[in-house]
Structures are given as structure tokens and as C-alpha cells.
């Protein structure tokens, strides 16, 4: 990874982490209050992010021959199959229990929330077990 690309990746992640913090998504209580229909803020967070990403994913490949610091624009096709369905359902059970998803589990550490280390440990172990069980 070139230094410029590394720096770009760090800066993009920093914006992501700042946004997660500014929108208070790093507070499990706020996420859980959405899941209990007490505060619909998470819809605005996700909606705002999706609109920006949809525009840029659509327009950038039309306006640029290649990424400014890369070879080509990647795509990540998703598939609907048994693994996706079961995985998403289990993800939701976990998310509803702890109010923490992967981004906030990482970002929260930057705001001094050491409690989230428990969630981070759980996620890391869950990913390990998934990989060990996979064919």
C-alpha cells in the first residue's frame, strides 16, 4: 500500500468514525432506543449515509476513468442465499441484545468507551468461530 493510499484510507476511516461519534451511534443506549421505537434517529443516520454513498457510487465511475489513487473501482455484489439470511438474522439478534455493531465497536474506543472492548471481544470471537466452522 502506497503512503498516499494509506493516508487516504486513514482519512476516510476518520470521517466515518467522526460521523459515528457525532451522530451518537457509538452509544449503545441510543441504538437500543431506536430498536425499541423510542427514537428514530438511526433512520436519519443510515438514510443520510446511503444517499451520499449512492450518489458517489453512481457518479464517480462515470466521471473518473479510475480512482484518484487506485487502479479500478471495486464492486462488492451481495447474494441472497441461506447464509445471508441466517447470518443477517443472527446479526440482528446480537445487535438487539447489545446495541453495538462493528463500526461503533471500533470507533467507540477512540472516545474512551472501554466498556465496548467487551463487545469488540465478542465480535472478534464470533468472526473466529464463523471462520473455523466454514468449509
Amino acid at each position: 500500500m502506497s503512503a498516499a493510499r494509506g493516508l487516504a484510507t486513514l482519512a476516510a476511516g476518520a470521517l466515518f468514525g467522526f460521523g459515528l461519534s457525532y451522530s451518537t451511534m457509538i452509544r449503545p443506549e441510543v441504538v437500543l432506543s431506536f430498536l425499541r421505537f423510542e427514537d428514530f434517529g438511526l433512520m436519519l443516520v443510515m438514510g443520510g449515509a446511503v444517499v451520499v454513498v449512492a450518489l458517489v457510487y453512481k457518479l464517480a465511475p462515470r466521471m473518473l476513468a479510475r480512482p484518484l489513487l487506485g487502479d479500478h473501482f471495486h464492486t462488492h455484489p451481495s447474494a441472497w442465499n441461506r447464509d445471508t439470511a441466517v447470518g443477517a438474522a443472527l446479526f440482528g439478534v446480537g445487535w438487539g441484545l447489545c446495541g453495538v455493531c462493528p463500526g461503533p465497536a471500533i470507533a467507540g474506543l477512540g472516545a474512551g468507551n472501554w466498556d465496548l472492548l467487551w463487545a469488540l471481544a465478542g465480535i472478534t470471537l464470533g468472526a473466529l468461530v464463523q471462520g473455523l466452522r466454514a468449509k
Partner: protein
Amino acid sequence: MNLSLSLFPLGWQHYLLGGLIIGLGTALLFVLTGRIGGMSTVFSSTWSYVLRRPFFQQARFVESRGWRLVYAAGLILGALVWWLGFAGSKPEATAVPVWQLLVGGFFVGYGARLGNGCTSGHGICGLGSLQVPSLMAVLTFMATAFLTANLAARWLA
């Protein structure tokens, strides 16, 4: 009580602005490097540094593990900037019990990796690229999360 107060008792501006900033981060990664920036893959790809099993040694993990860790470090950096510059430097904490964080986290990690995406991978990147399977995944995890969170509030509180 007016509608915006009942839907957003803590205000709505910070949610929308924060969401736009999250989107800008994901968009910046794409414009500069061409990469799709979901957050859950790093939890599989990082294991490839220490585990020799073929599953973890797949090219998609080994080739992306470096930048994914840098991206994760960026998340921490961004939150640090917010904490020191905007939040009055009082450390964040949560009252969610440790066992819920640990067990819930386990299912989050297992499920996100089995289902190939989380709230950012399927939610932001998948919906942002208008993929129907990602929409189905989002609807599925929203449904089970609503159910779990409400049952937990009733039984565990």
C-alpha cells in the same frame, strides 16, 4: 408534543449531519482508492495474520487485511477527534451489562461474517449500490433486532 419531538426526543440535526459525514467517509474511500468500505470484514481478515487455515488465507482476506486495519485505525482516530474537540472530553461509557455486550457481540460477529455484511456493509454500501440482496439482509436484521431489543427490554430490565 409535536411530531419531530416525539420521533426524535434528543433532536434530529446531529443524526442527519453525522449520517452525511459517515457517507462522505465511505464515498471518499471509493473515490480515492476504489474500495468498498464495509466494516465487518476486518474481523475475519485480521485473523489471517495468525491462522493458517485455508478459510482465513483466502485472497479476499489476505489482500485486503492491510488497508482494512488502517481504515479501522481511522475510525478510532475520527472518534478521538470528536471526543477531544467536540464532546467535552468526558469518556463515553455504557450501562449495558457486560454479558450482553459479550454475548450480543458474539452473535454480531458470527452473523455479520456468515451473512457477509453488517449495518455498514449491507446497510450503507449495499443499499448505496442499490443491491436487492442487501436490502433483504437489512430488513432481516432489522426485524430480528427489533424483536430481540424489545423482548430484552421486557425480560432483562
